[in-house]
């Protein structure tokens, strides 16, 4: 299975990864090899096999709907690089 440099650029954008022009051909090549390896799984007959959504053969346990703890905003926000009036601040994003 082979991917093009364009495929890889799109994936890098979606994953917010930076791949330089110089690295692109090499990374594309290695990425293709990994995909080919994984692609071998497609040769296995999986008819009638229920897709596995989790390796643990268990059901989800549910918790009671109650408020568990008081807010600890100060501690949680202490590591934020920028904040004001209780908001986290990030570089301006607008649609």
């Amino acid at each position, binding site marked *: 299975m082979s991917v093009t440099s364009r495929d890889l650029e799109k994936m890098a954008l979606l994953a917010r990864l930076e791949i330089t022009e110089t690295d692109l051909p090499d990374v594309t090549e290695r990425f293709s090899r990994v995909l080919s390896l994984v692609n071998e799984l497609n040769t296995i007959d999986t008819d009638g096999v229920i897709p596995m959504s989790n390796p643990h053969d268990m059901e*989800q346990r549910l918790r009671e709907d109650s*408020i*568990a703890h008081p807010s600890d*905003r100060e501690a949680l926000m202490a590591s934020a690089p920028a904040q004001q009036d*209780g908001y986290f601040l990030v570089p301006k994003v607008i649609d």
Partner: protein
Amino acid sequence: MSWEIVMGLEVHLQLATQSKIFSGSATQFGAAPNQQADAVDLGMPGMLPVLNEEAVRHAVKFGLGIGARIGKRSVFDRKNYFYPDLPKGYQVSQFFSPIVCEGVFDVPLEDGSLYPIRITRAHLEEDAGKSVHDIFGHETGIDLNRAGTPLLEIVTEPDFRSAEQAVAYLKALHSLVTYLGISDGNMAEGSMRCDINISLREKGSDELGTRTEIKNVNSFRFVERAIHYEYERQADILDGGGCITQETRLYDAEQNTTRSMRSKEVANDYRYFPEPDLLPIVIDDSYIDTVRQNLPELPAAKRARFLAEYGLTEYDTNLLVPNHAIADYFEAVAESSGAPKLAANWILGDLSAALNRSELSIEANPISAELLAGLVSRINDGTLSSKLAKQVFEALWNEEGDTDEIIAARGLKQVSDSGALEYMVDDVIANNPDQVAQYIAADDAKRKKLSGFFVGQIMKASKGQANPQMLNELLLKKLEDQS
């Protein structure tokens, strides 16, 4: 060219829970920024989600409420995208195996008919946080209080052919979910937000055209306007020989336009995969039965019962049923007064008008059901004419006591004593010989008009307290005797 509009709706419904879907933070609206966001909501490393049982129960209630198939084994998936108000870099949602599968929702239209809408699915997911773009100059503020609020996303098939149908569906859905108690339905606070998928095709064609998606419309009125605007926009492009670009658009309520949200297009690839931090939700038949047994009476059943049990009109029923609180209020007044039709008239007439004037909801109504029932009873037993009843209603509204106290205090009792009425009629006939002569000379049509003069005189003399029906009968008989 004549175009047919084709639409499907996606509604994001905020579920009424105390705590978030995967954490113990509170969900209450209006808290100070980031006051209700814990380490799970902030996506801190190593934090694990634990699913809220109430969110699951609400989803199952909804499924049963529309007679949908419940997904016995539903699975959470990660929807991957980057945005600052989504700290984990993915939203936990359900893509491949939703908790509510296909169903049909019958939407009552204004003419009383039912319009069936196919529900594709409804799935559980977490809400994102809120970005504030306009108060921090060159930066965006992030408030994660809403992050992790449980949502049910309800998706329909492309079954809508008009804005009116879409709005009727949303209103019926709003009514259903508030009856079920699974959402507060507060649209102004974002508890119900709607995405509209909309395309046009030539009338008679059965192929679908290219669609656009209008995001996050949060009122019935805006939904209607956004659809009308987008219809015109697409029709203009198609009439001019152009093509519709498949894209996401935003409705701008101030300008009444929709505009493209181009930035989202680049990243429109969510790479869903099963959420490894959560196990499948398994729902068995006994759980479903228990939820089913505890469902309240739903709008459709209540509508049918109001028609049959109280003999109301289709029109009255459609106005009384959608709001649970109004339906309950009506029922209390009807039961206690024994006069359901009168009760409906007063609730939909004077009471609604008064509430609107004062911008009050039914919950803030100063007239309790018991008080209004007292008024309705006194109209029903003939103590009050409708004219006097209006005075009593005003007094009830101003909290001057109950109906009997107001009647006593103001001396408002309707005169239904035939002796007293006869005296008044005789008096007015004796004092107005000219009008009596005119009446006798007139034909039937004219007589009807002329009798109004005598009624007016007597009402004036009795300060509005004469029983109008008895007065009319007596007056006509007496005038007849004169001729």
